């Protein structure tokens, strides 16, 4: 695939959560680039830090989060250094939009879908003419495949089903023509057939709106459907980053390989599922060295001592594992 511009770059990002039981290091020294027009999947299990990455980019972290270090560069500017005001007015919802696992998070239950949509368009695009706003609302709802957009615009969030509400949330996210869309597990709460519809819709809209997408998911199958490149995270660090088919068909990192082996398959018969022994590490008590070492059957002495760094092992395919350094 032809290398195009980098539209968003995350450099050495570290995010901590302050809790009474101690400091949770949710994201540690993460670096990656999002290329223009691509779909990058951030894949990981709980505690991997994947959701934190999305929230950090859009600066919607909970109040006990602390960004310890790092930069997030969009169009040459470090987003982390921008004031809250500039962030709200220029970036969040305008240049970078986000959709969530629960579409209800996007909507104030007291307002109709149409009101929320037109508020967003008014705030970010400055369009005040009611007639024009109305036209845009209907057109946006139609674009996301909602039948009877007029009725949806008049509805309240609780009156819509999960699938329809998620479409409406996508409409809100794309109404301002953003450059980047962050999708945090947008189909996890939906049934399989609805999930397929939404994934198809997102693929279509990505082309139409020329979007660059960061797609966060724990489901490797969804990642395979959706992504151009995959970033595999575990306990806050990046383990593997590369083109989708490379990472999923020829995984370099032991974790990625083992994870793929323990996923049951619907499209072929699996005799005996392999599994990864042990448990995910306690985020308050991360081991020194590679967080996967306690469960890895290829672990060496050095794995318990130092964190592996992300290095390019094959063209465009990076791994963080002492096996390769």
């Amino acid at each position, binding site marked *: 695939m032809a290398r195009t511009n980098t539209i968003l770059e995350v450099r050495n990002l570290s995010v901590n959560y302050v809790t009474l039981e101690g400091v949770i290091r949710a994201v540690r020294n993460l670096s990656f680039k999002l290329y223009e027009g691509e779909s990058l999947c951030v894949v990981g*299990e*709980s505690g991997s830090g994947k959701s934190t990455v999305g929230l950090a980019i859009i600066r919607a972290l909970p109040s006990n989060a602390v960004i310890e270090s790092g930069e997030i560069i969009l169009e040459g500017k470090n987003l982390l250094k921008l004031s809250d005001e500039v962030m709200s007015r220029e970036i969040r919802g305008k240049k970078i939009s986000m959709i969530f696992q629960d579409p209800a998070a996007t909507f104030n239950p007291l307002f109709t879908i149409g009101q929320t949509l037109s508020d967003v368009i008014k705030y970010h695009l400055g369009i005040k003419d009611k007639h024009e706003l109305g036209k845009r609302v209907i057109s946006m709802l139609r674009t996301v495949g909602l*039948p009877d957009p007029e009725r949806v615009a008049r509805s309240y969030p609780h009156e819509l*089903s999960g*699938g*329809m509400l998620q479409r409406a949330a996508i409409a809100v996210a794309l109404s301002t023509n953003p450059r980047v869309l962050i999708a945090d597990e947008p189909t996890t709460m939906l*049934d*399989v*057939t*609805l*999930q*397929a*519809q939404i*994934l*198809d819709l997102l693929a279509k809209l990505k082309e139409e709106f020329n979007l660059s997408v960061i797609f966060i998911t*724990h*489901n*490797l*199958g*969804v*990642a*395979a*459907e959706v992504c151009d490149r995959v970033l595999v995270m575990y306990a806050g660090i990046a383990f593997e980053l590369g083109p*989708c*088919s490379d990472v*999923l*068909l020829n995984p370099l990192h032991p974790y990625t390989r*083992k*994870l*793929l082996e*323990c*996923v*049951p*398959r*619907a*499209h072929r*018969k*699996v005799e*005996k*599922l*392999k*599994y*990864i*022994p042990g*448990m*995910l590490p306690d985020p308050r008590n991360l081991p020194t060295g590679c967080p996967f070492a306690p469960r890895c059957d290829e672990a060496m002495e050095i794995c318990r001592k130092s964190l592996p760094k992300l290095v390019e092992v094959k063209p465009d395919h990076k791994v963080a594992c002492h096996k390769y350094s």
Partner: protein
Amino acid sequence: MTLLEVINLRKYFPIRRGILGRVVGYVKAVDGVSFRISEDEVFSLVGESGSGKTTVARCILRLYEPTDGKIVFEGKDITKLKGKELKDYRRKVQAVFQNPFLSLNPRMRIVDIVAEPLLAHMKISRNEARKEAIELLERVGLSSSLARRFPSDLSGGQAQRVAIARALALKPRLIILDEPTSALDVSVQAQILNLLDDLRKEFKLSYLLISHDLSVVRYISDYVAVMYLGKIVESAPTEELFSNPLHPYTKALLSAVPEPDPRLKKLRKRISLPGEPPSAINPPSGCRLHPRCPYATERCKREEPELKHVGGNHYVRCWLL
């Protein structure tokens, strides 16, 4: 040997309006479901939300009273059981739910959670029950050092093991697994699935698996029944269903499941069902899928097809066959 037979099960939920609670309609959650589970078999009920699969399970567990139909377990219709007979039935049929943190009482220690069924049914002392509970915990892979902990101290995988130990305590014949791994992380799911498989062989259990996750279904089931809007639309032995699906809904369902293999994305032909499942209050006339089915004919709109045997224990409810 048939262990459980469900015959024409119906469960309608009344919809009430107004101060007097007048009944204005019914949600027909389960509308005529029949199937059979044998000894030593893993039977899966597959469907999306609104299909009625969970309601079927709850009727079998007598958490709901069926509106109509029979559920025959070891030769007896259990829908009318009361008192001691019902209690005896409960020893034989147990359940494991989706979210272990919701299915375990957060204020009970896990040894007591597992001991509770023993104390409820057998005349043993608390200490004896606790001892046996600890053995069960070890059998499902939990160290006895966790016995006095509370569920919130455990990880998702550990908590689900506790739920499984509790279900095993009374040595049931059938365990209903309601989305047993959906709330767990991927790397833990495989552990639990393998554990369930081992336990089934050791304790000679049958499982009724309720799931929307077709990959899990394919891995552990012997027989699969697909439900849509309160009815079974197709059922067959697992490999037969997955390699030769006949009903349009089954085909659409299978083609919608994403697979961690980018090559398959291009090879797989996607059959999409536009729109969303209609409500179960007023199901469509004729075949319930017809408003969304790409192959719907005139007959499909008027008449509801019956479940037909197409060979090899494979049944389909569709006019196109």
